[in-house]
């Protein structure tokens, strides 16, 4: 596996698509809390700069045409992102970034329209899953509060796929109720098994619908729990 530089400030590429709209929130969170300047990379680029990790932010890339994330998955830069991930490079996809990761086959499953037919924007409670990924090791069993904001966040995978995710410890986050139970009431969008986020089989790629970057200051949104996820992401290559 390729070794990533761990000296100095980490170099994180912020992959920007037309319609990305959470890129500045991500950049702000990483700068103010970790002193890291994210490096914007435009979707038409055909090479990545030297990077330690990539971040795919939320938004509505390409207007969500065809399917959410489908056109972005075929943009020139994603060829490079796939190659980066294939070498063991860490990636984090938030909301539309998660949709792009599934459409790129870097994560299994698909994100479909919410069963309520509504765009849902509200804080949710998450329970971190266990597993061998950096997220499982550092966050297992932790309750985290942060917002979701999506119309197409219903995670779908068939029965065999769901079994594989569970067997390999790939379920990173589930929606839970006040008691910490992944109940039907806590499921905001009809997602399978209350899944909010998953990791790749090698644990290096995380995709999740909730927005950790929007839960980094108590003054905005009333929770800073998102920092724990961003810290885990950083610890995967620092």
């Amino acid at each position, binding site marked *: 596996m390729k070794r990533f530089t761990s000296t100095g400030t980490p170099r994180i590429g912020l992959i920007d698509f037309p319609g990305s709209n959470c890129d500045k929130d991500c950049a702000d969170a990483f700068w103010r809390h970790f002193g890291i300047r994210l490096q914007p990379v435009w979707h038409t680029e055909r090479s990545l700069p030297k990077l330690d990790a990539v971040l795919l932010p939320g938004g509505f890339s390409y207007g969500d045409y065809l399917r959410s994330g*489908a056109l972005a998955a075929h943009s020139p830069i994603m060829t490079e992102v796939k190659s980066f991930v294939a070498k063991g490079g860490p990636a984090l996809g938030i909301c539309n970034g998660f949709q792009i990761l*599934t459409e790129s086959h870097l994560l299994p499953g*698909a994100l*479909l329209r919410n*069963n309520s037919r509504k765009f849902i924007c509200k804080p949710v409670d998450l329970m971190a899953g266990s597993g061998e990924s950096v997220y499982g090791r550092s966050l297992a069993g932790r309750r985290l509060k942060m917002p979701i904001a999506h119309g197409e966040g219903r995670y*779908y*995978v*068939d029965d065999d796929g769901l079994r594989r995710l569970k067997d390999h410890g790939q379920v990173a986050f589930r929606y839970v109720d006040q008691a910490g139970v992944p109940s039907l009431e806590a499921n905001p969008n*009809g997602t399978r098994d209350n899944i909010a986020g998953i990791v790749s089989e090698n644990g290096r790629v995380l995709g999740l619908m909730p927005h950790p970057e929007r839960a980094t200051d108590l003054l905005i949104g009333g929770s800073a729990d998102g920092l724990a996820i961003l810290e885990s992401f950083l610890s995967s290559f620092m």
Partner: protein
Amino acid sequence: MASVDSPGSSEFEVVVRLKPEVLDPEARAIQETLTRIGYAGVKAVQVSKRYILTVDDRSGQGATLVDSVAREFLANPVSETFQVRKL
């Protein structure tokens, strides 16, 4: 841009729909509304997307090309199925 009238071109229809086991909230909303406004006889609704592709078919490989486009791009095999038909 190729037109269907240009020599050697053919039109193909690709219909993409969700797999039967996957809930389609849009279809459900339509059916519920139909029932509410008096069309209780409608027992099921499926919503699909229909694409019309005009392709160079001079080599007779048009259907193969369209099948590949549908499989790789227009449909997501995780949640959707597709059908190709020459028009």
